[in-house]
């Protein structure tokens, strides 16, 4: 008699329902689970991630970029930089991918009710905040002011451009978009400057406000002191660690920062938690 449990490495199958080229090398997918039960029962929270597979090439780790308030599908966004992401990019609408997850912890959105939110994102790190942004916008009356500071190297490197426009046009969102110096074209109507500088200029009030920051390590490094200067406590700043992962299940041994397994204890941490870790991320 064999009474073992399930194979934890088995992915669900999902169909690429739609795709969009965000930049020349970043593509987003909308995925629909093929199994009806999975489609109905798959739930996740903003901030969780999944292992996406291009069969024959392998698995890669990305956040779930859509909001849990939008049912029936999930979205992800990836840059082609290696074997798996190149293979994912070679797929077409209607093709099948594998999805394992959702894994990891999430943003404690209920704790943000009644507060102002400041989102700070750089480059391809908008997707892990986009899930929270839409989650909060879909529950708009539960939050105070919503400010989004988003920047990339150049106009061409901004992702979800059509949504930036949508946020810009909404009266209940304050979008501050920026590109690095030299990254602006002749028709650019946003700011020019690095994200931390532009954040300091925008100077969102820290009182009763939560800051959510995602970006390359260098952006985070320079953004945290700005937030501190603006009066944000470390407990009021949330970020995600984007360590390399394989299993996503706390076994394969590569995503740890000290004794913290990012795949299980994270990927969402407060700045206070991040500062308490060995500085090796």
């Amino acid at each position, binding site marked *: 008699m*064999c009474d*073992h*449990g*399930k*194979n*934890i*490495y*088995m*992915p669900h*199958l999902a169909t690429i329902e739609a795709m969009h080229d965000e930049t020349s090398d970043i593509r987003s997918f909308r995925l629909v689970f093929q199994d009806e039960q999975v489609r109905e029962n798959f739930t996740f929270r903003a901030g969780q991630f999944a292992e996406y*597979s*291009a*069969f*024959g*090439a*392998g*698995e*890669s780790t990305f956040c779930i970029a859509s909001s849990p308030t939008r049912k029936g599908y999930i979205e992800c966004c990836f*840059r082609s*930089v*290696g074997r798996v*992401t190149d*293979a994912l990019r070679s797929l077409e609408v209607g093709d*099948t991918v*594998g999805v394992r997850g959702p894994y990891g912890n999430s943003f404690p959105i209920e704790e943000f009710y009644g507060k102002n939110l400041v989102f700070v994102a750089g480059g391809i790190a908008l997707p892990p905040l986009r899930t929270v942004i839409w989650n909060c916008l879909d529950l708009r009356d539960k939050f105070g002011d919503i400010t989004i500071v988003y920047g990339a190297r150049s106009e061409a490197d901004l992702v979800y451009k059509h949504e930036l426009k949508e946020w810009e046009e909404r009266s209940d969102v304050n979008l501050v978009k920026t590109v690095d110096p030299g990254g602006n074209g002749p028709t650019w109507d946003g700011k020019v400057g690095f994200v931390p500088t532009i954040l300091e200029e925008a100077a969102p009030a820290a009182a009763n406000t939560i800051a959510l920051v995602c970006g*390359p*390590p260098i952006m985070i490094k320079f953004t945290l002191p700005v937030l501190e200067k603006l009066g944000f406590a470390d407990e009021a700043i949330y970020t995600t660690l*984007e*360590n*390399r992962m*394989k*299993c996503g*299940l*706390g*076994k*394969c*041994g*590569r*995503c*740890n*920062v*000290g*004794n913290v*397994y990012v795949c*299980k204890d994270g990927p969402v941490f407060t700045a206070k938690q991040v500062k308490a870790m*060995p500085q*090796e*991320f």
Partner: protein
Amino acid sequence: MSKMITEQNLRLLIDTLVKEGARVVGPRQAGAMTLYEPLTKGDDLVLDQLPRRSAKEAFFPVCETILSFERKEGKTTVQDVDVCTVPETVLIGARPCDAAAPGILDAVFSWDYKDEFFLERRRRTTIIGLACTKADDACFCTAVGLSPAEMKGADLFLTPLEGGGYACEAPTEKGERLMARHPQLFDDAGNAKPLPLAEPAVEKLDLQKIKAWLDGNFESPLWYGIADRCAGCGACAFLCPACHCFDINDEGTADKGERRKHWDACGFGKFTNHASGHNPRDIQNKRYRNRIMHKFKYYDDKFGQTLCTGCGRCIRHCPVGIDIYAVIEEINKMGARDQGPGTGKD
């Protein structure tokens, strides 16, 4: 009455188990090496050599298929692997350092998500441990709380006797059942005395003191120096009975292929490399620090156990002569200086 088994009957036990259809894994000659490998007959068993690699392969193969996939007429299907096909296995002749390790790994393979590939092999394996009568310069089990007579992890434990044969103890029901199924192979031990066991030439270290030092010294000059000559070959991790890091890779094409778990090693530069090129452990010293920290602090933080059984393989076979015992002995000394005399307890 305590039991014993003659060497002849021990080999007969293997023959019997093989005939019954069990997979029997034990030390055997494989070319120039002794390895834990499937035995086809009792005479294959090599009793006096420590196998080159650990016994972890019996539970955690070097490479293992975890699923397969196929695409036909545009439709992709995924096929699960039936772990019920894992054979009933007897691991025989496991040294205390090898017998203790799988039980330590149960924690990581079963917290929250359960890796049934490992766990089903554990459930289906009976471990027959063997006390060590000789140690070499690299052995240090006694430094990390084990010993040549340690039964931890063994279902049945054999201790060599003066005049031949082995005293048998069954610390678990699995071991008792194995003895009960083959009563004719076991005799009363009488007054037979055990042979003197090995005495590794190391000091017993204070693992709590080592951990306490590691708790406070993520940044230390120690880390910059000890691994300067590490070539990052991963041999230490692959030979280690307790290292369990792995990679997941696809073999084949989208039309037909398999997904596999492969051993991996934290000593490899690409192990933690981000897609962006950013690497949290970008130099070898940081990778070696992670190795020490994982074994003597992180695993203890998470699961209350040390991820090292003192088998000495990483010392014995390191191509550049890095000695983990020397490293933890140094940490033990620094810990003692920082924290004063110990309590005398483990």
